[in-house]
């Protein structure tokens, strides 16, 4: 790996060029920074500011400091929502990433016919907007006229209750898994494609089987991509919104206003008109996501050492 260092220009002779490069660098970063500050930092700061107040329908606005946060920590609707998402994370994410990894490895093994077609078929659900896919699955899950229900009755198994309180979380897991396998698979697959093929040849010469190549070379090489997809999944899970929000129209009494923390923040702000409390919930949720992502990253780094 010495080749990369030789590519760099020698240190002392070209400091002028380096300064110019640095200036160009800042210039390139500027558009991003402007948008980043305007669309992320400012709104974040503003909602942080909002979360310190309390606006009652009668009585108006008053400064309450951290009261909203204290209230949120003792709010069973919020903590239940976070717990529900933790269950979701622990069950759904390993299944989804496991399948995505499996598909990526199979695609990469070179033993598959119609590779492009298969790749596209797995990826297509991701191209379907979340709202549409939730509507579609809502129809498939339907207890009276949904195809699963009709099949269930036809073979005498009765009507599967996909939309009941017991199974709703799993039904949503299924929708999310269906929608995001392709996305994760593409990330993992492209990471696989960047492994130099010479390594495989060397392994084959040494007599390694495809399975052995996968476990000893490919999966370890995929570690950064797996960490990335896992962190995306952690963030996506805690922010779950579209699927429960759409399914709420067909199972309104199963999916309450606080089914997921994100849904809760939305309903607080727009149904209960508690914008300040909603801001606090959103902030806490962001904090939870940060902590979980960080802990996850830390744990994977330990494995390296």
């Amino acid at each position, binding site marked *: 790996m010495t080749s990369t260092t030789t590519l760099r220009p020698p240190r002392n002779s070209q400091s002028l060029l380096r300064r110019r490069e640095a200036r160009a660098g800042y210039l390139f970063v500027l558009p991003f920074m402007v948008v980043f500050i305007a669309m992320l930092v400012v709104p974040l700061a503003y909602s942080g500011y909002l979360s310190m107040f309390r606006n*009652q*329908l*009668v*009585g*108006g606005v008053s400064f309450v400091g951290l009261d909203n946060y204290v209230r949120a920590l003792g709010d069973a609707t919020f903590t239940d929502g976070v717990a529900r998402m933790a269950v979701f994370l622990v069950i759904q994410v390993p299944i989804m990433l496991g399948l995505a990894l499996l598909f990526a490895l199979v695609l990469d093994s070179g033993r598959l016919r119609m590779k492009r077609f298969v790749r596209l078929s797995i990826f297509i659900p991701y191209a379907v907007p979340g709202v549409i896919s939730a509507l579609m699955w*809502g*129809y498939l899950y*339907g*207890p*009276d*006229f*949904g195809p699963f229900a009709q099949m269930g009755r036809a073979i005498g198994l009765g009507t599967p209750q996909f939309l009941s*309180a017991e199974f709703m979380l799993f039904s949503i897991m299924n929708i999310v898994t269906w929608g995001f396998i392709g996305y994760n698979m593409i990330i993992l697959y492209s990471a696989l494609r960047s492994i130099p093929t010479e390594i495989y040849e060397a392994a084959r010469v040494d007599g390694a089987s495809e399975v052995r190549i996968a476990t000893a070379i490919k999966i370890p090489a995929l570690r950064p991509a797996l960490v990335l997809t896992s962190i995306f999944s952690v963030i996506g899970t805690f922010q779950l919104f579209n699927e429960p929000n759409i399914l709420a*129209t*067909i*199972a*309104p*009494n*199963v999916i*309450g*206003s606080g089914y997921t923390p994100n849904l809760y923040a939305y*309903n607080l702000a*727009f*149904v*209960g*008109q508690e914008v300040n409390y909603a801001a606090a919930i959103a902030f806490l949720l962001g904090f939870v996501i940060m902590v979980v992502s960080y802990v996850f990253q830390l744990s994977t780094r330990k494995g390296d050492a």
Partner: protein
Amino acid sequence: MKPQPFRRTAAPVVASLSALALVACTGGSEDGSDSGNGGGETDAITAEEFEEAMSTPTELTFWSWVPDIQNQVDMFEEAYPEIDVEYVNVGQGAEHYQQMRTAIQAGSGAPDVAQVEYQHLASFRLGDNLLDLTPYLQEDLSGQYPDWVWSQVTADDGLWGIPQDTGPLGNLYRTDLFEEAGIEVPTTWDEFAQAAADYRDAMPDSYLTNMPGNDPGQFVGLLWQAGARPFAYDGAETVTIDLDSPEVLQVVEYWQGLIADDLVSVDPDFNDQWYQALANGKYASWQVAAWGPVFLQGTAGDTSGLWAASTLPQWEEGQNVSGNWGGSTDAVLSSTDNPIAATELARWINVEEEPATRFVQEQFLFPPSLSILESEDFLAEESEFYGGQQVNATFAEISETVPTDDFGWLPFMDYAYSSYNETLGSAIADRADMVAGLEAWEADLIEYAESQGFTVQ
């Protein structure tokens, strides 16, 4: 209508300034006096003032989700060439109100005139966001509506919206299924319960009716019929939440009995599953508002000719009482710069004969005004979908049986309805203890009201 991006720019600035001024006024007064518009004793505008306002070039913004309401707007612009109305559909129901609240809070971008359902007028009056139309009207409209409709738009000596349509509750049923099951149309709720059981015996795959756990509007309409008056708002800081009255309990316990015995289905309504069920005869009847007949025609087109309309079953034999579910008004926001023109828009499209008749004939809104409710053309119309029945006449008669005493609302009905879904509604959906669900609903509403600074009675 042509978009005019350049002339538009000044309006929001002015609007936001005046809105700021308004916020400054109302924010300061702790005792919630209603003097947002300079005191209630304002004299009505003179004919000259009206003429001047209507002949001055003016731009109005109008938010509504009524389909094709642009037709009425065009007619208005033709009648008043100087007034330019920008009509916007920002979404239906909850979405529309969210946009309104956001614009009001932001202090700019709010419409001059907006569609507001009866049950939400109170929540926009809170914070003095609605304009009392009384001083801007040159005629007294009170005689033009059934008393109960008028009582829905008036409070505290103010008129807060012009009625656009209403939804007195009736009963739509499948004549063929009733016949097949050998059932008479029930006239009392006792008969209805018996019919539900008989129907279930005869037709084990379907139900006499469906009681959704997600439709507080319908349920509250049934409470209205039973004489319950669960909500009220004094326009300031006091709300009434009375969900443990004998009338409320009577309705809840009645449905509890039917639901617990699996005599009615409990599917959530207004989703695909339910549309199909309606069209497929899973429910043999639907206790629905006056807008229901046309809605059903669109949803269950294949069952044309098989339906009929009647009054709701009654709690006492010989009674004839109904309730209301839904309907809208056009209200003027207090932030408007052109109160006279805005009020005239709200009045003109809903009161003048031509646009109002079009609402009935083309947009199929159920008319609130007596002149149409009593007109021969309206009453005599025969509906093929309902086997040639004069459905309008049936519902016009029902409209007269809605009790005239004030049925009030809370200034936070969207919260109240959302809370219903998680308490009483959940109990319905789970076929669980509805009385406990009712208690949970009441407790939650009281808690919310108190946390928002209201005094609860």
